[in-house]
């Protein structure tokens, strides 16, 4: 390798290393505050206290969905591994919204209640036919397959 190429190689690699180090530091710094959502236990621990509006993420607790008789108002409880939070929402819910489904609600705290202005459904990375899911659910005998599949993010 001649000296010119040697020099160019050194310069390019040095710049590349500098850029990688810089972005690694940025990514590391953002780790703290670039989270898209807070889980109920994080909110109860006070992590979201500095935000007026934030996103709450977790699973819809089975049997907690209550719809208003004459309006779009709906209340439900969002849970994670260690906490639970009642949510109130007035609007149209996405098709995937159901019990034991991961949801992300945007809104603010009103006392101990979370008042949502937008509710999004999150789906997991598992894809399988319905028959297979039914068979697996039977094999697990009472164990909820949705819970197993949805636990990936709630652990974080």
């Amino acid at each position, binding site marked *: 390798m001649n000296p010119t190429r040697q020099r160019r190689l050194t310069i390019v690699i040095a710049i590349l290393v500098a850029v990688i180090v810089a972005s690694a530091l940025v990514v590391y710094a953002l780790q703290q505050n670039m989270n*898209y959502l807070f889980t109920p236990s994080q909110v109860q621990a006070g992590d979201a206290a500095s935000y007026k509006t934030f996103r709450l993420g977790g699973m819809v607790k089975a049997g907690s969905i209550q719809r208003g008789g004459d309006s779009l108002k709906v209340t439900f409880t969002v849970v994670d591994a260690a906490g639970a939070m009642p949510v109130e929402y007035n609007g149209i819910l996405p*098709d*995937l919204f159901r019990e034991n489904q991961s949801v992300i609600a945007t809104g603010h705290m009103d006392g101990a209640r979370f008042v949502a202005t937008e509710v999004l459904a999150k789906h*997991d*990375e598992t894809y*399988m036919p319905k028959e297979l899911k039914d068979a697996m659910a039977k094999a697990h005998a009472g164990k909820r397959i949705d819970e197993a599949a949805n636990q990936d993010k709630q652990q974080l």
Partner: protein
Amino acid sequence: MANWIPLWLHKLSSPPVFYRFAGVLRPWAIALAVLLGLVALYGGLVLAPPDYQQGDDYRIIFIHVPSAWMSLFIYGVMGVAAFIALVWRIKLAEVVAMASAPIGAAFTFITLVTGSLWGVRMWGTWWTWDARLTSELVLLFLYLGVIALYHSFEDRRQGARTAAFLALIGIVNVPIVHFSVVWWNTLHQGSTIKLLGPSTIAPGMVWPLLTMMVATKLYYVASLCSRARADLLALESGKDWVRQIAENEVRG
């Protein structure tokens, strides 16, 4: 012993040799890409069973995910070519890097549009600023920046080297896109197909996905061959081998 590989690569980097090689490769690549693409579409849209949660709506995965893989893969190829172009000033590397950018930008655009269509049906929103979506959008801007920078110079080679620099620096975004769903809480779900560990998709659904992946790779090869051939002719327009081709065209 195995020094025929560097020798062959060295020979291939000569513009006339690559021009002929790409001319032979291109029709095979495009034919196979179309064939496999049709098989994958049939497998994905007709044969694969509906998903337990998303029903038939999940079928957009057969376009969305292969496009997303290609958007990252092509950036990787472009980055490596840009590195070679900057250090060794090999003309073919500049051509490959610059010819890859529009193809990669197209795949990134398809990824964002199909993701948006999928998102509005499943999540309930067209767009949200989570880490995966945002970093993929940055990837599109990087591609567009490389294309714009390349074309803003009078001298093509000067433009290619400057744009190669941006392409090389932007490569840090590739792992960020890939790991964004691991590093941060995102609305976007994690990876389904894993190289390490079991994938979380039924076999009836995974084969069309992998077939489509091969088809998109072959399409990229074919498209790259066409673009690189045209760029080489333009760059080497004064050279004997190009004149030879031009004269043959006129006579033929």
